[in-house]
């Protein structure tokens, strides 16, 4: 801090205004040292590192537009007769929530645009989080010390899903009402507590007159409040851990090579915010989303075909649509397995990816810090697992839209459902095997490139008539980058007999771990990267082949 600068007499006139403001603030907040320490913080440059930025900015856009919408939205289920400017709804009975959403869409200045920006930004926010999460997963950026931040991110994704769900349920239209009913059904399927939770949440029988007001509090206050806290924590941890980087010359586990936060990233990030905002506004100006005026007000006795949730809940929808309608009746109680099993699977499927960092570090026994990212091909088992997970997720998305797929590809909805049922089990296995083979193939290609160079496509004829293809050697930088990754040895169980000849009992978990570790780093899971000796041996000879 430099509290005394302002007290020194100035011989060359007054300091510029900016400096005086900075001095004033520094004297009270002590920002100088904070800024000094962080303004030159280095961030590496790669487009995939900006996926998180897309999420952050769309989150900010959602908050800004959401505030505008709260000014006009009435979270009430009081029944009113509609007399606004939308003709096909004239005189219809509807809740105030639906009527005010129609008002926002047709009578509030800029209302429809803001609504569409809000909704499109939410769709993009969740999609961005999904892709950001996959980027972190496939590059191994979740490894120590970033496991907690991985969990923060995962929580943001899950909370985002439920914030989205409570948000699109607010207008109380026929589509979202069907979704709320679906959710209530899932709650009811929980043994013992289900009925109590449902009665508590809806203040009595469904739909009651409370849920819009309650979802409103959850949607605008509770969940976004938690999310905002998590976002701040997420960013603080990114600052604290420093950003990861891809391997390359001059980049080590102990440094960060890139550009300083100020001025480069401040300008870039600031500019990028406006690009994201502009782009989402453009999409919202072009394409309609959730045209509630077409859907009609919710009435529990009505339903439409093609009733799907927004994409991020489509996975849950697919699980329920694919599940056979099993049911067990005993002693006057009903256990609706057809809904309860999907509900459990929903939690398990998401939970697996959340806990993956801990599973991997246990299996591999790797407790070191990692700041250099993996190329997905160099961690074939992890990459294959991730692709299998995404495959399962995507197959369930197909399941969620089975009717739309059936009508648009002239298929039978039953065939689509059976495809999804079989695909949910077979798809991830097939994806795992194929991905692993592809990763190993790419590792072989890297090895080949390092040892023999890049195929140039130039065919040379030698004096004695032989044709050869000229291979261009790679640059030193490329050679380093292709061979920078570490290759691990599988964890061994260790000697089972100690020096006194006493046999040690091997625990089951130990055996499992050794087996999994072999699956990760065994001979069949990685191609040995070329050694310096191999390289020298091949490049010292002059012949190309």
């Amino acid at each position: 801090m430099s509290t005394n600068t302002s007290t020194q007499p100035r011989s060359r006139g007054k300091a510029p205004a900016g400096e005086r403001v900075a001095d004033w603030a520094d004297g009270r907040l002590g920002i100088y040292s904070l800024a000094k320490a962080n303004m030159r913080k280095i961030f590496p440059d790669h487009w995939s590192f900006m996926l998180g930025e897309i999420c952050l900015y769309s989150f900010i856009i959602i908050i800004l537009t959401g505030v505008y919408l709260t000014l006009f939205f009435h979270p009430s289920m009081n029944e009113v007769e509609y007399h606004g400017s939308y003709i096909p709804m004239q005189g219809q009975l509807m809740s105030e929530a639906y009527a005010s959403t129609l008002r926002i869409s047709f009578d509030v200045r800029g209302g429809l645009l803001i609504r569409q920006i809000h909704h499109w930004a939410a769709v993009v926010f969740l999609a961005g989080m999904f892709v950001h999460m996959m980027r972190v997963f496939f590059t191994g950026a979740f490894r120590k010390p970033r496991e907690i931040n991985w969990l923060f991110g995962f929580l943001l994704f899950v909370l985002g899903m439920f914030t989205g769900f409570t948000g699109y349920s607010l207008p109380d239209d026929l589509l979202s009402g069907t979704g709320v009913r679906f959710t209530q059904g899932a709650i009811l399927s929980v043994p013992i507590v289900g009925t109590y939770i449902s009665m508590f949440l809806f203040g009595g029988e469904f739909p009651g007159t409370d849920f819009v007001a309650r979802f409103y509090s959850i949607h605008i206050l509770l969940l976004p409040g938690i999310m905002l806290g998590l976002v701040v924590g997420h960013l603080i941890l990114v600052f604290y851990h420093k950003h990861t980087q891809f391997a390359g010359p001059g980049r080590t586990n102990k440094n960060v090579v890139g550009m300083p936060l100020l001025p480069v990233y401040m300008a870039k990030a600031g500019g990028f915010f406006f690009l994201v905002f502009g782009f989402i506004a453009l999409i919202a100006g072009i394409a309609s989303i959730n045209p509630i005026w077409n859907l009609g007000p919710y009435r529990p006795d009505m339903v439409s075909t093609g009733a799907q949730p927004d994409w991020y809940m489509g996975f849950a929808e697919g699980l329920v649509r694919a599940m056979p309608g099993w049911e067990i009746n005993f002693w006057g109680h009903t256990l609706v397995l057809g809904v309860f099993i999907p509900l459990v699977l929903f939690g398990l499927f998401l939970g697996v990816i959340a806990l993956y960092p801990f599973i991997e570090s246990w299996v591999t026994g790797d407790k070191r810090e990692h700041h250099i990212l993996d190329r997905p091909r160099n961690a074939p088992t992890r990459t294959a697992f991730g692709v299998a997970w995404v495959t399962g997720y995507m197959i369930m998305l197909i399941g969620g839209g089975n009717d739309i797929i059936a009508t648009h590809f002239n298929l039978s909805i039953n065939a689509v459902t059976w495809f999804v049922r079989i695909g949910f089990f077979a798809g991830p296995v097939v994806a795992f095997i194929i991905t692993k083979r592809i990763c190993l193939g790419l590792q072989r290609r890297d090895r080949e490139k390092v040892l023999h160079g890049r195929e140039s496509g130039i065919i040379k004829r030698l004096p004695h008539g032989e044709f050869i293809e000229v291979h261009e050697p790679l640059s030193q930088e490329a050679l380093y980058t292709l061979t920078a990754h570490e290759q691990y040895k599988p964890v061994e169980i260790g000697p089972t007999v100690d020096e006194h000849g006493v046999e040690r009992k091997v625990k089951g978990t130990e055996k499992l771990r050794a087996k999994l570790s072999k699956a990760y780093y065994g001979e069949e899971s990685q191609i040995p990267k070329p050694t310096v000796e191999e390289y020298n041996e091949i490049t010292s000879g002059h012949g190309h082949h």
Partner: protein
Amino acid sequence: MKKLSARRRHPAAALVVLLLALACTGGLYAVFAPADKAQADETAQSLTIEEGKKLYAVDCASCHGTGGQGTSDGPSLVGVGAAAVDFQVGTGRMPAATSQGAQIPRKKPVYTQAEIDALAAYVASLGAGPAIPAESQYSPEGADIAKGGELFRNNCAQCHNFTGKGGALTHGKYAPNLEDVDPKHIYEAMLTGPQNMPSFPDSTLSEQNKKDIIAYLDEVNSQDTENPGGLELGGLGPVSEGLFGWIFGLGGLIAVAVWVAARTAKAKKS
């Protein structure tokens, strides 16, 4: 050519070849794909029940029986009424190419309206059934659109979607999209319940109710329907919106991110 061959090992070569191949295949398909054949228009003549019977013998009798009594390939037409004939033949569903398949699709009609009327007259003569409605019955003029919307959501949306965009039924059957279907045919469909559709006789859905529904569809699902929100993305709800959001929303933003990342203030490209 030399330039081309020097670049054939370029990293992007495979992509370029793939794009060219796709463009070629698509182009060839567009050229050779069988075009919809235009039907020869026959001049309308004053056709009577007799003439309808002749037409019937040519195109319908093989499945529906020589006297409309039905066979294993087609149902009996006794008592289906003129409205059913006008709907089935007028929307091109009949004559059907085959009785196999999940559902008989809508096609370009084979007969002129005069021939359809003759056919309808003949089938109506086999047994009493609903008659072809008059224009005053189905015209959307003077109907209550909002009421029609409510009725549509209550009775039709389960299969036809909120605004009649259509939806899937079991085993490859489907409720068709109702965009720009002739109001007369919508009326007849409600009256006669073709294929998988239940029928809504006047005792269930009054004449005025049918008119309201037709007016609602005319308002929300026709070529002239304005969509205040912009592109309606098929009017299918969150599935198409999600797809659009992923491909154009996030896809576009990733493209922007790549563009921004490629333009960096760097001393040396690393």
